[in-house]
């Protein structure tokens, strides 16, 4: 028992020691942003997210720095990423709306996948855990009903908890069927006919527009814009919402 306690304490210390540099770098990035050095601040935020230190606060600050720099598309992406991580953050939701209006985007243009909203609601209210708890309770009630045939309530409870559990599980399961999305972070980003820098541009994407990702190939994403045009865009121009950004390219 004593050995187990020592191991837990050691693990906690190791975690705090590893987290300390991340917190320091986060503060350093904030200071850079406050001083007006937005490019360096954004680069530091990017390094933190690429190292796995993701949080809604990180992306919130990233969005503020990007907006101050004039990169509204990037700011919108950072806010949407923050909303993915913490769907209950109302400040993020409010700023997403504000930025959407300043970009003259229709609400549907930043929500091409309606099931994604169900996914956020599921994460916010932990419907996956609720579903698992209800399903486990239904199993217990069912077993009790079999073990004690004379008791009537376990049978009803088993049915009720089973139905509720399946309903709760249906929301995250449906959300998992939605396509991943990405945000156009560069004004006039080209839509290419192939995943190659020498491919021909078939159109341009609107900054801030959220597009479904159809497939990916290396540093290229095949996307579909709101007008239905499909093509390839570079990850530097179009950033996915469902994953941390790739490390900055030299």
């Amino acid at each position: 028992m004593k050995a187990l306690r020592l191991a837990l304490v050691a693990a906690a210390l190791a975690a705090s020691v590893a987290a300390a540099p991340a917190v320091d770098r986060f503060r350093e990035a904030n200071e850079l942003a406050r001083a007006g050095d937005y490019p360096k601040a954004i680069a530091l935020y990017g390094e933190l997210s690429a190292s796995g230190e993701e949080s809604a606060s990180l992306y919130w600050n990233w969005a503020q720095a990007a907006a101050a720099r004039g990169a509204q598309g990037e700011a919108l992406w950072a806010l949407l990423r923050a909303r993915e991580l913490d769907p209950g953050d109302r400040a993020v939701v409010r700023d997403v709306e504000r930025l959407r209006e300043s970009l003259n985007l229709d609400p549907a243009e930043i929500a091409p996948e309606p099931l994604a909203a169900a996914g956020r609601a599921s994460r916010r209210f932990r419907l996956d855990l609720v579903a698992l708890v209800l399903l486990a309770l239904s199993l217990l009630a069912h077993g009790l009903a079999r073990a004690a045939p004379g008791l009537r309530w376990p049978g009803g409870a088993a049915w009720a908890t089973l139905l509720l559990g399946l309903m709760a599980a249906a929301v995250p399961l449906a959300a998992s069927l939605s396509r991943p999305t990405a945000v156009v972070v560069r004004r006039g980003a080209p839509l290419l006919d192939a995943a190659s820098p020498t491919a021909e541009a078939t159109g341009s994407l609107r900054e801030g527009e959220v597009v479904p990702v159809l497939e990916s190939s290396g540093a290229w994403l095949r996307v579909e814009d709101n007008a239905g045009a499909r093509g390839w865009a570079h990850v530097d121009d179009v950033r996915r919402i469902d994953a941390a950004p790739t490390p900055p390219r030299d």
Partner: protein
Amino acid sequence: MRRLAIALALVPALAEASFTLRSEVDARRIGVEDQLQLTITVEGSGAPDEIPLPALTNLEVVGGPYQSTQVSIVNGRMSQSRSHTYALQPRAVGKAEVGVVRAGDQAAPAIAIEVVAGSARPRQPQRQDPFGMDPFGDPFEEMLGRRRSRAAAPKLLVEAVPSRTRLRVGEPLLLTYSLVTQASVADLQFKEPPQFAGFWVEDLERPQGSPSGEAATVEGESYRRFPILRKLLFPTKAGTLTLPATTFRIGLARQGFFDAGGAVERATNPVTITVDPLPDAPGFSGAVGRFRTSSSLDRDVVPLGEAVTLRFRIEGTGNLKWIDRGPEVAVAGARVFPPQAKSDLRATSEGITGSRTWESVVVPETSGALEVPPLPFSWFDTAAGKIVTVETPPLSLRVEGGTVAAGLPVPAPRPGALRSGGSLPLRADLDRHPASSLALPGRTLFALAGLALLLHAALWGAGRWRAGARRGASRAASPRSVRAALAHLERAGREPMSKEQAASLVEKALHEAFGEVPEDDESERARAVRALLEDGRLVRYAPQLGQYEDRVKDLAARAAAVVRRWA
């Protein structure tokens, strides 16, 4: 100059005659393809209103009469003349004649015309009209086979004059379109709408100038200048911007009865504007001009639970319409709702003048003294040539009542909600891994839900299996066994035998009908069989204390009923 052949008949003046009558034609020798103009003129007063058409020989009327009246005052005496004009077409080659014209007691002699083959009039060159047929052209031009033309091209031009040619992004520029002319103009319109690429445009009211315009000199000649349009332009990007030439179509006023008027096109010269970029500074959002800011609360003391209205106002002159967001407001201890913007703006030649006000509803969440922090605003001052940042003074708000004691320090706002001044509303804590981000993958959840369903199915299947096993153990007896059991029971209730023999026979019959009854079988059937067997054992092993015939008969009858019902 056209040459008129005039047959003039001066009628001897009579004492009572106060008018004269003339009959004129514009040619005495014409071709059969030509037309002839006949003008009958009455000068003086007292002439009848109607002048009858004279007799025509080898001529027919193809147009008219067209009347015109002229009044002139010479040396204090007024004279009046009235003309009736006809267009005549010869019918055949040969002699033609316009007969004597009579009006009242006056008469004009007949005029002889010679008609030759073809056309005797010289061909006039067609006027080049860029707009084709002029609907207001002189009708005689077509009828008479020739067209009239103005003596010279009208002297007029249009110009677009900017108030300045170098400015910064967001600064206003007044562009005035003017008509400079020596001719009378009846109509003026754009041939194509002007293009203002790179500018944000505001329309200004039409300039109120003198109706006669202002004097202007162009290349040594005197003109009149009429401002016709003013636009207020705000460059939206830096660089050299060019306003392309704008073409106007100008309708000319008719100068007389036979003047067709017409229309001409004139274009302005392109205008080149040099636009300098604005300096960059934190908190500067692109406002350019001269502004004043103020903030106010609608009351200084408010009960807890009620709201106050915070107003932030910017007034002045500049690109006020560009200022679409007020400063972010955060009040510690209060909830600030997103503001509503109100505008009172008008376009002037100096820019957009007026005010914009952002009204925020502030709901205190605690008692005590709250403070609305200074609200900053930055703009590029065109007079100073630099970015100016000012802050409104802080405002105090006292919140009374409530459960929190007055004077207690108010809670600090949560990270991210604080937006003070022009600085970024950054969050201080990294706040990693919120619980909501740890969601189960869809596949995992699907697998777990499927596993739960499988376990439910297994439990249900096990129950069914056990029930089946019970049914197998107590399955229905064959008809032969039932008949044999009933026969045994009949014998036990009817034939004289000892109680042991009778009880043994009942037990045998029950076993034949139902077999072994499991101890854990709680069904009504099992309980009934077990009760009969128990009674049988009681009868069998009870001491012989009396007659058991009735009891044996009762036992056999109940066993027979159970066998008939369940077996």
